[in-house]
């Protein structure tokens, strides 16, 4: 009797190997760490290349999206892609060693093969921002997800008007990507850096990021309502102050974008860990406009 022969639904082996269906749930690309740069005591920049040539070429992402990086047996976690979308599956991830997975990652050498899945999540609308002023505001590690939209801007510099990066770091030794500041400035980008605590070498301003922002807003005549977009990334405490200032400067909420951090286990809108209400940060985020954020309880 074979009445209930519902067939073997998706055979596991096939589904994870099927190339046409790379977004399949447990599928991950094998990727090799091609180089590791130490940026600060806790952050390292990893260049990661998807091993399979075809897959590497087909890997397409938008600025602001993230990947899940997996070390077999150790853990899996979300990391913003910090490289230019034009480089496809040659990714850069900047990772701060804070816990189990990231500490282990900080020990591995180049040549190690890791698992990558994604890209996941929403992105910054860089096309929409063309022909406008762009304000990139980052606190601490927040500079990492900003690099992808920044690359888009750099690669198409003429399409954007004034571009500002306002970057707050705890102290000069924690500043990331220092080796690129020169290059950014060459592309006519206003880079303002402020630190919480200066050290002997520091010559720039000391204080809160809002002070720099205040100045910037002032030069715009306290009115950002025309033709400006802002992207804000940083620790939760920063969002409130920065976004409030922007709104007071009459920047429309739909033109302020933030990237939220939540615990994520699947990145695929299943595990529920990143939920705010029923909004999955991994599917509807991590990039939200500020209007959506205000509509979610306890979002920041």
């Amino acid at each position, binding site marked *: 009797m074979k009445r209930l*022969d519902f067939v073997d639904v998706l055979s596991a082996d096939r589904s994870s190997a099927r190339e046409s269906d790379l977004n399949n749930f447990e599928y991950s690309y094998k990727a090799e760490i091609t180089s590791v740069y130490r940026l600060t005591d806790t952050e390292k920049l990893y260049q990661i290349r998807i091993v399979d040539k075809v897959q590497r070429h087909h890997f397409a992402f938008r600025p602001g999206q993230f990947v899940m990086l997996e070390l077999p047996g150790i*853990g899996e976690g979300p990391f913003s892609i910090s490289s230019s979308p034009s480089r496809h599956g040659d990714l850069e991830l900047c990772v701060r060693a804070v*816990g189990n997975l990231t500490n282990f990652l900080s020990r591995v050498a180049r040549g190690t093969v890791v698992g990558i899945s994604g890209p996941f999540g929403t992105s910054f609308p860089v096309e929409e921002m063309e022909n406008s002023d762009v304000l990139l505001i980052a606190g601490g590690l927040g500079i990492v997800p900003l690099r992808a939209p920044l690359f888009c801007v750099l690669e198409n510099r003429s399409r954007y008007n004034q571009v500002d990066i306002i970057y707050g770091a705890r102290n000069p030794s924690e500043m990331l990507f220092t080796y690129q500041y020169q290059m950014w400035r060459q592309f006519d980008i206003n880079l303002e850096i402020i630190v919480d605590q200066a050290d002997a070498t520091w010559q720039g301003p000391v204080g809160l990021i809002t002070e720099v922002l205040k100045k910037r807003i002032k030069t715009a005549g306290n009115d950002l309502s025309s033709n400006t977009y802002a992207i804000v990334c940083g620790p939760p405490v920063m969002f409130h102050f920065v976004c409030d200032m922007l709104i007071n400067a009459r920047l429309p909420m739909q033109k302020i974008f933030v990237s939220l951090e939540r615990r994520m286990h699947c990145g695929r809108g299943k595990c529920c860990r990143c939920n705010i209400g029923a909004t999955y940060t991994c599917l509807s985020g991590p990039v939200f406009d500020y209007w959506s954020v205000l509509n979610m309880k306890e979002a920041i």
Partner: protein
Amino acid sequence: MLFKVFPENALEILYDVLAPYPLVGPQAKGKDREDKDIFVFDYINSFAELRLDFPTTIHSVKKFLLPSRENLCTFNLFDGDWEKYVDFNIYKPHVFFGLHPCDINALNKLDKVLTGPVYPDPFYSSKRKNMFIIGVNCNPQSWCFCKSMGADTVYSGFDMFLTDLGDKYFVEILSATAYDILTQLPIADPSEADHRRFIELMDERNRNFVCQVDSSDLTKILDLEFQSPVWQEWGDRCMSCGSCASVCPTCYCYGVKEYVDLDLTTATKQRQLYSCNLIDFAMVAGGHNFRPDSPSRLKYRYYHKHRGFQEAYEEALCVGCGRCGQACLADITVPDVIDSVRRQKVPK
């Protein structure tokens, strides 16, 4: 939908036809303090074990679709490289004999999240697609508020549905497989009298729903009352133990843990069902916790179920089975909580 009837004693034939498959159904597994049977869903080994007269089970059938622990993949590691193996952990179709409408509705709700449209979860989907479901009608219990949640009747998500008319069973048939199986039983078309009897029974059942929840405008009210002091009071009672989520047929959130074997050459990635009431649910690296106290976590559970999900799917993520309230040692029940949010008063 096709309707048929078959005589009471033909139920055993139905069981026998399906018995060659792994068959899950309600059975008595102990007595409570008042010496009443306690029911659970488990594998059935004989017709006598199958007890369709059950009130509700303590746990839902969730564990057969979303086991509390499930291996997502295993790794073989060798010389700097590794291979990943995925297994969806289903090898045979399962028969679920005796699900109440609320439980089938719960599966339908889970389907919305887990079978699509983005990134369908193959572990769940493969099991779900390999289910043969026989629903049965229930006797409302004092704590069931499924009617308020619109989950007291079910229109899809099963193969056949039985209602006991006394001397015969009234069957709603929803799949060809079910029809095919029923042809082995002495089935007949229901008579006019059978129709009447069925409708009468449904009326009677409807009258027996005593527990109610007023869910009108609930999404707005929950938003309005986000800072309400009742949350603090409920939170003080909550033990943050996650029992409610464990027994709930619609809770599905999980965590992932990876294990390395002692010989350091194989590793497993395992998912473990979690609960938003557990203390570290919303903790992120570095120790920041978005919901550090039990009131905010308890509130979150209600927000997700009755506001967020409603917004996303136009229905609540709750079927009103009342299991969570029954399982909660601190006596936190959905009707009481929702009522208290409306009236700003927490029952003692």
